[in-house]
């Protein structure tokens, strides 16, 4: 079983996130991490491969990212967690990609790896926590023409089919699809493992393959800013919020104070 996991390098939620003067998401090495839900995707991949047989050889987890130099951090994290190898789509031509450019490049990365041996599954997180699009998994399924199982909170592999359960928009659904398939997971699906010292050491000797648009057979004009169908016109930080009005409920009057605030501001 060979699984590709898409991992994105995003600004840490705790960091001071923002945009560059070119109106692109500011990505710095210090403040970046692997998109947290993608750790769940890596964990799911490792568990599926472990269930299929001994890792290595025919059973492989391969991490895939599209992003600038710093994005290699996300790959390194995946390797430390236990991925066998990693593929970095790295090219100035990719800069400024929109959802479609991203999905087209990632799909080309999948095809590149599949040319070396069958890929059974592409795993992703449910959302990149910088843009919160939740659309790349669907677009990957369109690009690859594979069925999609997205927002999966529970996964099971049986008889060459994956069964996924999802709970969203007031509906619980169970979907089943034959491999190969694109799967997007939520953060509730598992608890990602924390790499130990020896895993971190072992990851150092693992290979990161770098591929350009040309390596993938992609026309540079079709990806990145030149291929994008949207353009960010404006990105401005908002003024800080004013200090909140705080009351302390030491005499049982807090509830009434809350009600009074709503009434006073005509909110009910």
């Amino acid at each position, binding site marked *: 079983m060979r699984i590709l996991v898409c991992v994105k390098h995003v600004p840490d*939620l705790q960091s001071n996130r*923002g*945009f560059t003067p070119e*109106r692109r998401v500011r990505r710095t090495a210090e403040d970046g991490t692997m998109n947290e839900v993608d750790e769940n995707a890596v964990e799911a991949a490792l568990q599926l491969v472990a269930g299929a047989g001994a890792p290595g050889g025919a059973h492989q987890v391969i991490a895939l990212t599209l992003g600038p130099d710093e994005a290699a951090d996300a790959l390194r994290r995946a390797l430390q967690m236990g991925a066998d190898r990693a593929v970095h789509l790295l090219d100035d031509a990719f800069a400024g990609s929109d*959802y*479609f450019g991203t*999905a087209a490049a990632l799909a080309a990365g999948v095809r590149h790896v599949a040319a070396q041996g069958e890929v059974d599954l592409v795993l992703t997180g449910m959302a990149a*926590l*910088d843009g*919160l*699009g*939740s*659309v790349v998994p*669907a*677009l990957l*399924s*369109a690009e690859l*023409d594979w*069925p*999609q199982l*997205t927002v999966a909170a529970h996964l099971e592999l049986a008889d060459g089919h994956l069964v996924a359960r999802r*709970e969203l*928009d*007031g509906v*619980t*659904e*169970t979907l089943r*699809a034959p491999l190969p398939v694109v799967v997007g997971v*939520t953060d*509730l699906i598992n608890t990602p493992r924390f790499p130990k010292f020896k895993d971190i050491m072992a990851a150092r000797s693992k290979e990161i393959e770098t591929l350009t648009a040309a390596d993938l057979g992609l026309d540079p004009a079709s990806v990145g800013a030149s291929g*994008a*169908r*949207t*353009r*960010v*016109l*404006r*990105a*401005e930080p*908002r003024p800080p*919020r004013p200090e*909140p*009005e*705080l*009351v*302390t*409920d030491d005499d*049982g009057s*807090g*509830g009434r*104070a*809350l*009600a*009074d*605030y*709503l*009434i006073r*501001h005509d*909110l*009910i």
Partner: protein
Amino acid sequence: MSENTILVVLDTAEEALRSPVLEALTIARSLGEPVGLTLRCPSETALDQLAEHGVNRVVLADLGDAPAAVSAVAAQAVAAAVALVSPTAVLLTSSFANKEIAAHAAWLTGAGLVIDAASIETRDGRIVGAKRVFAGTWDTECAVTADVAVLTVRANAVTAEPAALRADPQVQKLAVSARVPAGLELVDRVVHEASADASGAQRPALAEAAIVVAGGRGTAGDFAPVEDLADALGAAIGTTRDAVDEGWMAHDAQIGQTGVTIAPRVYIGAGISGAPHHHGGMQASGTIIAVNVDAEAPLFEIADFGVVGDLHDVLPAAAAAIREHRAARDEP
């Protein structure tokens, strides 16, 4: 002058249109001529709402046996409707399912895609969507450079307004022979029963409610005080991931980066610390109120008003005071 056509996906037209769809229609009218798209036969109620909201043309896509619950299938109906009515923009409400339908539809039609727009306008002939990102700390505007724009619109971004002139909606059928992804099977699909308040009335849905009362780990699993205040306010109930993890609430009640993004008029968070994952999903709310025993809880930092106190005391007292106020107000 030929007017722009704006296609609006009508989520629940077989019953009645819900407020996020009416909000999308209101935005559509500000951009051009709204045309509705439904995958199921619209009810009389929905047709009446469409008339009120100025929609003269409704496309009823017939997918035959193909399962409309599969986003890649529903998207083919959207693409067929785009070919039929040539819109400049397609608007959908911002549910998880709709984001996926929007993605597939944009992929099929070559459209540009904006997710979770709070406002939409036409500028220099292009559709521009605005949204607040990074947990509400930045405002952005994004222009669609492709011929067609597909946008999901977040709920409560505008107030739904009826049109100045009542329309006379005509339903036009459109047969769509959709391709179903190979081997994909919907094993089962259970629609959650809408949660009911103490009087048995249906609570509003979290994603579209004007007021949301959310409870976190500080409830210790007892949501009675949260429900009490929600019922007094006619509010929806939300929660944090920790409470979902504990099995206290279902995942679709989770507010945040890996849950539902909400922007109600009023958000009240009780027993919620205000982790960035959580506030990324609610910081666009109009008024934010926090109730927490810990005066240092980060949710206070983004709140307009806060009570430092135990939610088990504060929420029921607030509910009682609101009921009292309502009773006094409604008295002749």
